[in-house]
């Protein structure tokens, strides 16, 4: 399956915006782990903005930067949002309320607890009526969401925004589902190479058996991000995209399968 990708964005600890992410991924700037607080989403009205949690803000931060990078109108894009944990902070608050005597769940928290909350706020903020899917596939979320976004792009022949993100869980859930830091990745996928912002061709293949190509980031400094968050599985792909180089890589999926990827930059000889 072949798609064309652009706008690849990484935000997380020490990576406050897309430009910083690209510099880090290219090795032009040493990676330094640092605080990251997702900004209030500018695309939302003040009322909606107040209702958003860090998890939604994280997703919308990456999504907004990716769409800006390809200069696309967000209202024209299908969306695939992937998150393993959903909104752990909201889910924890509700679970705590339910274990107490009163069980007075907050209505705002309840509607924010749906797994597609980030998608919902994105569509509200960006005025999107296009189809949107939200998925949760534990540590395979990145691979599953990428495969799904590519499939939508190819079959529906429409550009698709992919956003994969996770926040750490609050305690006590943090002890049973370890996510060490916030991280979000967003990429815009197009069915055709003649599209604004396309940086590379990406072919994907789902196959049985263990991966036979690398998946971990080349930059040693990014290792903690790779292992500490399901979205970190995108790091090696993002490195190749940022460097504009051809590469093959493979992600383990579901203990018995893999997702093979082949990146070909747009300016390489194959496209000349």
């Amino acid at each position, binding site marked *: *399956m072949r798609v064309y990708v652009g706008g690849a964005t990484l935000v997380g600890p020490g990576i406050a915006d897309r430009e910083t992410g690209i510099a880090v991924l290219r090795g032009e700037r040493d990676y330094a782990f640092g605080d990251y607080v997702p900004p209030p989403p500018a695309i939302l009205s003040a009322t909606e903005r107040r*209702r958003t949690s860090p998890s939604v803000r994280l997703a919308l931060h990456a999504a907004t930067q990716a769409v800006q990078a390809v200069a696309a109108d967000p209202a024209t894009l299908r969306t695939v949002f992937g998150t*393993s944990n*959903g909104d752990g902070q909201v*889910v924890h608050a*509700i*679970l*705590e*309320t*339910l*274990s107490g005597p009163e069980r*007075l*769940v*907050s*209505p705002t928290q*309840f*509607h*924010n*607890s*749906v*797994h*597609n*909350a980030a*998608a*919902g*706020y994105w*569509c*509200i903020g*960006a*005025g*999107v*009526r*296009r*189809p*949107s*899917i*939200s*998925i*949760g*596939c*534990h540590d*395979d*979320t990145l691979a*599953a969401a990428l*495969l*799904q976004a590519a*499939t*939508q792009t*190819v*079959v529906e022949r429409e550009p698709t925004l992919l956003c994969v993100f996770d926040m750490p869980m609050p305690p*006590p*859930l943090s*002890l*049973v*589902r370890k996510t060490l830091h916030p991280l979000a990745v967003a990429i815009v996928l197009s069915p055709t190479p003649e599209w604004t912002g396309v940086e590379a061709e990406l072919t994907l293949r*789902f196959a*049985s058996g263990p991966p036979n190509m690398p998946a971990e980031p080349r930059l040693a400094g990014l290792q903690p991000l790779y292992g500490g968050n399901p979205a970190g599985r995108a790091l090696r792909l993002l490195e190749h995209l940022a460097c504009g180089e051809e590469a093959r890589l493979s992600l383990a999926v*579901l203990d*018995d*399968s893999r997702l093979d990827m082949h990146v070909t930059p747009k300016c390489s000889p194959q496209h000349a």
Partner: protein
Amino acid sequence: MPPLVLSAFTVVSAMGRGVAATHDALRRRRSVLRRCDFEDATLDCFIGRVDGVEDESLPQPLAAYDCRNNWLAHMALRTDGFADSVVAAKERYGADRIAVILGTSTSGILQSEEAYRRRDPATGALPADFDYAHTHDLFSLARFVRRALGLTGPASMISTACSSSANSFAEAARYIEAGLCDAAVVGGADSLCRMTLYGFASLELLSPQACRPCAADRNGISIGEAAGFALLERPDRAMPADPAGAVALLGYGESSDGYHMSSPHPEGLGAAAAMRAALDKAGLSPDEIDYVNLHGTGTRNNDAMEDKAVAQIFGTATPCSSTKGWSGHALGSAGIVEAVIAALCIRHGFVPGCLGAEAIDPAFTSRVIVENAEQRVRHVVSNSFGFGGSNCALVLGEAAL
């Protein structure tokens, strides 16, 4: 789109276990919603509860997946010969060519609710026997079903609130068209938990009676639980148990409201867009649709906006109804429950009238029916809408084999 045959399908809900029990409940117009007796919930509401879920157990290699949601899924896998049909499909295609794409809204969160009550009083830690990844985590259901059926194709767990399992049909159709798989297990499971009961109570959306979708005096939803599955394949290689009554997915349409997190667009713009997209995919005009199975939750807002959306497209002639008066609102599994009901309407030639609605809302202009009717049903549109403004409409019809 090329049609995809539902070569096997099954459902377990408050209406009963399997398609025959579901068909019987619809025909006899048997009300099965009951006053809430779930765990220690003290809410003035009705629920659609599946009897016997607590008595289920999973086979030893899958014991880590033990939770109400997977028990319910396990019941469904062993109903209507569904698992056997998948075994036969595996022989045709290979285990790696069958995808598992399912929907759920809350997966096994009930397990976390129980674990939170058993936290260590000193440290607040969750009990050591609590297995988050195999129960509460969303992917638990898809991993469980994939392992229980011995499949090794691609898998995904969709969670778009109450449209989740309807979306699984659309996603699977794309996977088949893209060549990622030859067949797909779709559907999903959502089971009763305190989170959804108290959550909908906080929004003041629970009816103190059995829900009455489309009724003039409707006053909210009744939460139900259900699991259901369908096996989707291309017609040329499908081997349905009953070729004469075979049903196919003919189209799907998805859209977003982009309006509000928990209220639908009041004019039903997103709902109408999903239905139009589904008709386009199916290559059918509205007058070729014989029945619309409404999302019809029983809330004031949903049913009013859906009436507007349906009337915009189908006018006043096409019979439509909600079947949530039987099943309750099974949330993420509502889509598969109603896809199976649509298949039964097509196979058996009838349309169910809304249960529990004595008088339809006089403001409605679509043709909402309150009595069952015998008629040929070639094509059905089935609607599912969810929080976050997620909309999905499916078109099911007679399969030409």
